[in-house]
């Protein structure tokens, strides 16, 4: 069911559909919330129901109670994410400091979107990925992330601690295993810190002070319970659950009910006012939420009073207070996000929403450092915009000119002048020119794609080989079509090279620099279509596509799933459009030819005409039609150059995009294989342990360590490739939008120009027609 809802959700079109979105986020959020309970502490799951029922009382229907508006969720998320990351951050200083670096941020965001597809996995993934940048944490997190596959987790847990294999417990093990490897003390410390912090910050507001009491109690109990428990025997389980029951009731279920209920009010107010009335929450809430959030929050707190338990109301009030504090941040962020494209936006929403649920327990009380994650995302935003600006200001102009035939016969080839103008310090001089032949371009692509495709980069592909076109040129026919072919290829090569150098990472590649600068380029090998290497390449490609088919990737990231679908659909549409534009070019050429024929025929008719004025007019008409022929011809050329070529480029580029997706899939497969291997090794170890063969045990343990390292490595690879692919795709889309816009405008201008010409011709003809007497 959850899968279904998540797959239905497409990247919401921001900002137009601002209203429906809260619903989505809310849905997802409550989903996550549930999962979290499933994840961190199983017993809590039982509490979910009462919590929901609480909200049920106040709101008429369950789904409605699950609705929430993003700003509020952000609010909640802040303390939440803080809570989840804080202990770790405090524990290990590195991740905290590195938290602002780009890869880290990206990684952070991933689990958020993954959360929607496989909630359980995400939960575990989340802390895992957060820690993944710090080696220390990695070790801790490894089991946690592996917990994503349930059976394996069981396995893992058994050796890790002596706790029972009861499914309920398994998830609890995760923190437990943390404890095992780290001294338990620090774990509690951060929590305590947080609690210590909170009064300080909340002390400023009188209301906030109130709720501090119960939470701190809870925390005292809870962490010790939580972390101590796994090491206890099975019998402790019963007791533990009972202990959990009480604090949970207050802390988890009710705040949650509150959390879900309040946002819902906002949401109602914006979108479903009548419904909100039905749930008798909304009396005085009348103003626009975005404009007067403070009012709403405080009012809500009051309105919820009668329906909820007293503690809840207190909590809700603190929430209100929090919101007051955090609002500037949230809205600042929201406005920034508006300017970004929607997928990213969506992602961030999820990201924000996710942690909120993941640690909803301490959420209401932890507020001191709540705003931390927010600046982080802001930073990210700034980073991206900065990067954009840098890209725009690229001081590098590349042009390809003077295609020239070198040699004779079948060994002839076209050489192109590649001129570079730059102010970049990485080049030796400001302007330089080299001569390159087509196969050099292909060679450059081969080199780049060998190096960068592995990392998930989208390497722009060069224009295709055309044996037909080239043979014509080689044979030396100086006709129209071969000149057109050369020009088309020249332009395509230019665009290709420009795409390469505009790619910030590819530009750094020494091969690119060499290609642009070096005078005597070694001849590129293995680019011939019919060579042995070409044949090998073909075989490789075939096996690749075969293995691709065999990989059944259990896609855990909706973003990638949706993007891949989008790319495939787009590819199809572009191909169709390309065919259409080709047919337009064909028809336009036909029109040109027919117009020419008509012009000649009319000229003949004019010569036969015995009325002098009419004869003159007819020959004028013939001239106009002659020009028209030229005009149609030119237009057909610009149809083809501006429009069809653009489409062809992007069909090729989409191929590269897909290749990067494939690469990601391959790294995933490698990671999975390694995991399976590790599992096998562990099974062996368990067997050996059972058989009590200590001599081989050491070997098995070594194996496990080795494979654990590999799994970590591969997983990191996968994460890295995923992050790269995501970044690349976003970059690609941005480039595409810019490119398309530019080309469309260029194309329209060509159309405009030919219409202007047309007007000129006919206006010149009009007096001639009028002169017929």
């Amino acid at each position, binding site marked *: 069911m959850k899968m279904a809802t998540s797959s239905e959700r*497409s990247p919401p079109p921001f900002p137009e559909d601002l209203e429906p979105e809260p619903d989505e986020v809310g849905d997802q959020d409550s989903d996550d919330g549930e999962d979290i309970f499933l994840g961190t502490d199983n017993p809590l799951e039982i509490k979910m129901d009462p919590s929901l029922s609480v909200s049920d009382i106040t709101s008429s229907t369950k789904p409605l109670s699950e609705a929430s508006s993003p700003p509020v969720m952000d609010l909640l998320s802040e303390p939440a994410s803080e809570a989840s990351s804080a202990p770790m951050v405090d524990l290990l200083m590195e991740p905290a400091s590195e938290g602002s670096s780009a890869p880290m941020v990206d990684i952070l965001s991933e689990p958020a979107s993954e959360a929607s597809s496989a909630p359980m996995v995400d939960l575990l993934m989340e802390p895992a990925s957060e820690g993944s940048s710090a080696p220390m944490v990695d070790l801790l997190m490894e089991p946690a992330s592996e917990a994503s596959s349930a059976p394996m987790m069981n396995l893992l847990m058994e050796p890790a601690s002596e706790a029972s294999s009861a499914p309920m417990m398994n998830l609890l093990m995760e923190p437990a295993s943390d404890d095992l490897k780290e001294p338990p003390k620090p774990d509690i410390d951060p929590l305590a810190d947080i609690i210590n912090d909170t009064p300080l910050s909340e002390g400023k507001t009188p209301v906030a002070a109130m709720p501090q009491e119960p939470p701190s109690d809870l925390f005292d109990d809870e962490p010790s319970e939580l972390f101590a428990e796994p090491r206890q025997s099975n019998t402790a389980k019963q007791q533990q659950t009972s202990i959990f029951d009480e604090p949970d009731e207050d802390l988890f279920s009710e705040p949650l009910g509150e959390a879900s209920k309040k946002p819902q009010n906002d949401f109602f107010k914006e979108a479903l006012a009548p419904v909100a009335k039905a749930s008798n929450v909304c009396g005085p809430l009348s103003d626009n939420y975005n404009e007067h959030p403070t009012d709403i929050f405080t009012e809500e707190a009051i309105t919820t009073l009668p329906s909820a338990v007293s503690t809840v109301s207190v909590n809700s009030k603190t929430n209100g207070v929090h919101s007051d504090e955090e609002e500037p941040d949230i809205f600042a962020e929201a406005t920034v996000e508006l300017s970004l*494209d929607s997928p990213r936006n969506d992602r961030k929403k999820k990201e924000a929403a996710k942690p909120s649920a993941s640690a909803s327990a301490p959420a209401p009380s932890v507020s001191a450092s709540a705003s931390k994650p927010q600046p982080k995302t802001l930073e990210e935003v700034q980073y991206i915009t900065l990067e954009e600006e840098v890209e725009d200001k690229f001081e590098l102009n590349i042009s390809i000119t003077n295609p020239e035939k070198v040699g004779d016969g079948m060994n002839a080839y076209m050489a192109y002048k590649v001129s570079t103008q730059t102010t970049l310090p990485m080049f030796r001089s400001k302007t330089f020119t080299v001569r390159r032949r087509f196969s050099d371009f292909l060679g450059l692509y081969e080199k780049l794609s060998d190096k960068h495709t592995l990392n998930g980069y989208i390497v722009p592909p060069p224009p295709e080989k055309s044996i037909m076109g080239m043979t014509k040129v080689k044979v030396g026919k100086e006709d129209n079509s071969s000149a057109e072919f050369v020009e088309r290829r020249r332009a395509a090569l230019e665009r290709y090279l420009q795409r390469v150098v505009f790619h910030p990472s590819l530009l750094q590649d020494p091969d690119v620099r060499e290609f642009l600068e070096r005078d005597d380029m070694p001849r590129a090998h293995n680019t011939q279509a019919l060579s042995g290497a070409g044949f090998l390449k073909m075989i490789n490609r075939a096996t690749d596509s075969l293995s691709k088919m065999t990989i059944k990737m259990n896609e855990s990231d909706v973003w990638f799933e949706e993007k891949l679908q989008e790319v495939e659909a787009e590819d199809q549409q572009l191909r169709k459009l390309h065919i259409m534009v080709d047919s337009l070019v064909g028809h336009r050429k036909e029109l040109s030819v*027919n117009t020419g024929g008509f012009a000649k025929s009319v000229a003949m008719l004019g010569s036969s*005409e015995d009325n002098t004025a009419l004869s003159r007019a007819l020959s004028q008409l013939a001239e106009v039609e002659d020009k028209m022929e030229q005009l149609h011809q030119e237009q057909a050329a610009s149809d083809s150059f501006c429009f069809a070529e653009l489409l062809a480029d992007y069909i090729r580029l989409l191929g590269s995009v897909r290749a990067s997706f494939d690469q990601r899939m391959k790294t995933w497969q490698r990671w999975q294989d390694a995991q399976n291997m590790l599992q096998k090794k562990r099974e062996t170890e368990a067997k050996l342990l059972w058989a009590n063969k200590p001599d081989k045990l050491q070997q098995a343990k070594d194996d496990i360590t080795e494979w654990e390292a590999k799994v970590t490595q591969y997983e990191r690879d996968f994460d890295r490739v995923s992050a790269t692919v995501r970044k690349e795709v976003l970059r690609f889309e941005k480039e595409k*939008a810019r490119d398309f816009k530019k080309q469309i405008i260029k194309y329209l201008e060509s159309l405009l120009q030919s219409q202007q010409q047309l007007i000129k011709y006919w206006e010149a003809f009009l007096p001639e027609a009028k002169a017929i007497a």
Partner: protein
Amino acid sequence: MRQEEQNGGCFQKIANIARLAAQHDDLQRCCTFIIMTSTLDDSEKEKARSVSVDLNNDASLLIDIPDALCERDKVKFTVHTKTTLSSFQKPDFSVPRQHEDFIWLHDALVETEDYAGLIIPPAPPKPDFESPREKMHKLGEGEATMTKEEYTKMKQELEAEYLAVFKKTVQVHEVFLQRLSSHPILSKDRNFQIFLEYDQDLSVRRKNAKETFGSFFKNMVKSADEVIISGIKEVDDFFEQEKTFLLDYSSKIKDSTARAEKMTRSHKNVADDYIHISATLNSLSVDDNTALKKHLEKFADLFEKLRKVEGRVASDEELKLTELFRYYMLDIQAAKDLLYRRARALADYENSNKALDKARLKSKDITQAEEHQQQCLQKFDKLSESGKRELTSFKGRRVVAFRKNLIEMSELEIKHAKNNMALLQGCIELLKSN
């Protein structure tokens, strides 16, 4: 300019009616709709009249075809007459006529001996719905490969094309009658008056197989005859000139007509391509979620608009240019027929001269031969006289019609190009602004 816009409005109106009727997928069935040509305003009618002939505005006999009904292969025209002539019983009346009735009238006129010296207006061509029908068929086949939107647009385009053909058919029939009505002699023809007045179905018999063969045979004889009599020395320089001119002109204009048709057809293809491109761009924009989405939408929208203008350009070129050439191709054929009849009469006269000489030699049947010779001479003189008149008026008519159509066409071309420009400029500005 303004007139054209009104016409556009009318056309739209008709198109709407047609679309209502064209709910069925099968175009043949949906042929059954009424064209409310009567909704067209005066300017439209004036345009219709001026398609290829310029007629003197004689108010004594005004004929138009206010509406027509198309069922399967048959087209039923309502012929409306308004007259002040006393030879008609009523001043205002309408009768239903089919295409075959027009053919009958034409044939009757051609066969009338008295009109041998006149250029008989060419018979309207048979309603030809083959091309849109064929296209419809193709469209049905290609339905699976098209998006729904694309299909709908193509169908609309086809319906519009079908409608244009229909309208053209009505026009050529109307023009035929109007040329007759404006002719001083032909307008008084008995058959013509019956055609206009008889309020029942004329139910003219179709030509049976024998007759069809007969007319074919007659044509053969005529062409053979033409070759034979071409050896006869022309006595009149005027006719000598006219003959060479018409022969030359006829072959040239035939070529031009064919080429103009080709040109307009490929122009239509271009307009059709715009539909596909627009539809594909649209579906591309649906999938897109980046900033490009809006651009693509605008681009698709622009193509949709461009396609309409381009389609208008194509159909206007067809109406103003191809139809003009086609009509004069037929008219020249009629003029050539007149020349043939005159040449035949000349040959007859020469023969009768020879016969008279022979009779004088033999001193036998001299009076008879003299009579015959006189008759032939009279006939020839009469033909020559009226032929000269007809050909001169034909020349004037042709020049005026060409002038009018060429002016109208260039004005339309300019207008459409300006429309296109405005669309393009608007779109470019929109794209540049965001």
